[in-house]
């Protein structure tokens, strides 16, 4: 099996699906000849031509708006938003149109658009190249939200997204785009949307993480183990619909839970996880569920490492929950 990083895995999925299905088109800023500012679409322009790998004018509302029209007519567009931070000019098209099209038309007009966008901090990007906007989309009925943390999941999930019929926000962890490497099957495979993966088994506390934070959770779990604490790590992979069963199974087993996310704390997805867990498994909880998150500030530049969750902070929360 070849080794790939996340960028390569994404590109591999796109190429594979574009070969298999002529209806798939890629569009966005700089995705054509240049192959995307992160090079995720590199080579696609040469292989599939400018009609299917489209450099658009600079307008996210246009990228998503036209992608919707393409999907209605019968294409399977996979627009790229250059940074998650630049998705907001398209917000109306996403939350009022894309998410609601099937519903508002009584099922007449499904709208299978897969929006790819890099998210998260840690690349010295300041507030406009670092945000993690998942909450906004999870809170929008009609969208699926997928957030892989490694190359294998990225390829299998992206292929799955391009083959189902609902709109998806596919968030890619840009900090580890190249750093995260792993074996990825050359051929075709899909991972089920909506299934978390237990990336490490443990007995004392459950760590819930996704996207760029899974590596922080893993790192923490290792340090915890060294300190004699057994940690189970669950990589959610899909945030909407999230895998409540896997989460509950783990939390019921460990009785303790810490959630890690980069987005600001207040109304972050961590809050929903806490709410959903306590509603269903309060009697199993030995301590409050803790959150290690970004702060309720815009994402800073000079102090980004102070802002982002790190193993130290996660370990602190684990100890707190154990000592509660």
């Amino acid at each position, binding site marked *: 099996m070849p080794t790939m990083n996340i960028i390569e895995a994404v590109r591999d999925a796109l190429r594979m699906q574009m070969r298999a299905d002529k209806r798939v088109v890629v569009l966005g800023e700089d995705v054509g000849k240049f192959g995307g500012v992160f090079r995720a679409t590199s080579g696609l322009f040469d292989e599939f031509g400018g009609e299917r790998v489209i450099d658009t004018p600079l307008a996210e509302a246009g990228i998503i708006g036209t992608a919707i029209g393409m999907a*209605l007519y019968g294409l399977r567009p996979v627009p790229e938003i250059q940074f998650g931070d630049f998705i907001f000019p398209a917000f109306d098209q996403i939350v009022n149109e894309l998410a609601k099209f099937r519903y508002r038309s009584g099922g007449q007009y*499904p709208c299978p658009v897969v929006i790819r966008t890099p998210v998260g901090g840690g690349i010295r990007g300041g507030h406009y190249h670092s945000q993690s906007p998942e909450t906004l989309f999870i809170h929008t009925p009609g969208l699926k939200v997928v957030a892989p943390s490694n190359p294998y999941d990225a390829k299998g999930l992206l292929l799955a997204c391009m083959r189902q019929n609902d709109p998806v926000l596919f968030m890619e962890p840009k900090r580890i785009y190249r750093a995260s490497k792993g074996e990825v099957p050359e051929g075709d495979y899909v991972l089920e949307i909506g299934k978390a993966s237990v990336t490490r088994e443990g007995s004392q506390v459950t760590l819930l993480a996704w996207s760029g934070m899974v590596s922080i959770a893993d790192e923490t779990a290792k340090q915890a183990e060294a300190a004699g604490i057994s940690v189970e790590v669950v990589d959610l992979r899909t945030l909407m619909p999230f895998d409540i069963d896997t989460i509950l199974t783990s939390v019921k087993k460990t009785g303790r839970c810490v959630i890690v996310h980069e987005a600001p704390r207040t109304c972050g997805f961590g809050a929903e996880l806490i709410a959903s867990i306590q509603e269903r498994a309060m009697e199993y909880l030995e301590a409050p569920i803790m959150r290690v998150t970004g702060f309720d500030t815009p994402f800073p530049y000079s102090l980004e490492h102070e802002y982002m969750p790190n193993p130290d902070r996660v370990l602190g929360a684990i100890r707190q929950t154990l000592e509660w």
Partner: protein
Amino acid sequence: MVAISQYGAPGEPDDLRRVLDDDGKPLPGVKVPSIPEATLTRIFEVMLLTRIMDDRMMRLQRQGRLGFYMKSIGEEASHFAVAPLRNGDWIFPSYREQGAWFWRGYTVQNFIDQLFGNEDDPIKGRQMPVHHSANWLNLVSISSPVGTQIPQAVGAAYAAKVMGKDDVSMVYFGEGTSSTGEFHVGMNFAGVWKAPCVFICRNNGWAISVPSTTQTAAKTFASKAVGYGMPGIRVDGNDLLAVWQVASEAIERARAGEGPTLIEALTYRVQGHSSSDDPSVYRDPKEPEIWEKKDPLNRLRGYLRHKGMWNEARETELSAQYNQEITDALAASDGKHAPPIESIFDDVYEELPWNLREQREYLMAQARSKNPHHHG
């Protein structure tokens, strides 16, 4: 009043395409488009139906039997830019082109079921009245947020091109909507892509209470086409023959791969914005009076009669027939239920995820406990 001078009374600017005068007589020296008689009379019939429907529904609304309605009285000719389209072509409407729906074959019953959001509503009672959707007619679901349909229409047009089809997209919006960012990005993408798309800006002078002079400082809405490298045409939107003519040309250009066109159809919103509106608060009642003299139905009727294609008897009979159809459809609708409660959860996704399954069970249990006879 500010708005009047811009709307052609008394002296329209030269660049306004017209065929008929206010009485329905062809203007001297203007070529009358050749439209088959059956087509032309059919257009008039659908215009008549539209007018009757608007009237009936508004009265129903005033009686408190319908929640909300939006009329298009005085703007009906502009709906028939869709008439020269083929059935395979796609239409992205705004909320004020009833005629386009009936033209394509949307039935009186469809229309009324949607207004009442009942179990036979094609969209299952999901949206407010006048937000139709008919995928079997290539008429795209209407949205309330204005302008969103514009880039969508461009995307569909582009898709047709990529898929090797020669379908055209036509998209409607009001002049107020030309102020949105969506208008700009849609027009701009269309220009760059040379998308087979026809943009119809229904300039009816008002966006709720805001006159068109507050929407732009440009001389005309058609002139905005310059910024997108496409032709901009201004047409008398109350003149069916002129609308047909400029629409046909734009559709042909699009189909031939020559790119998009912006058409400004100059018309007037003779009545309130919607059933919730009261225009007397913000505009001079003399303004609509001027425009009533340019009524699109009268003008086409005049032309047809003059050509011997129409007469009063036929209109009386047809009006009675339409009125009866509406009465029947209302009666049928009266007997219909609301959509089933559990349908609230359908179509959010192709399949119900666990959270919606759980929420459905909860709601159905609640419904059963309140009404033990309900079988959800």
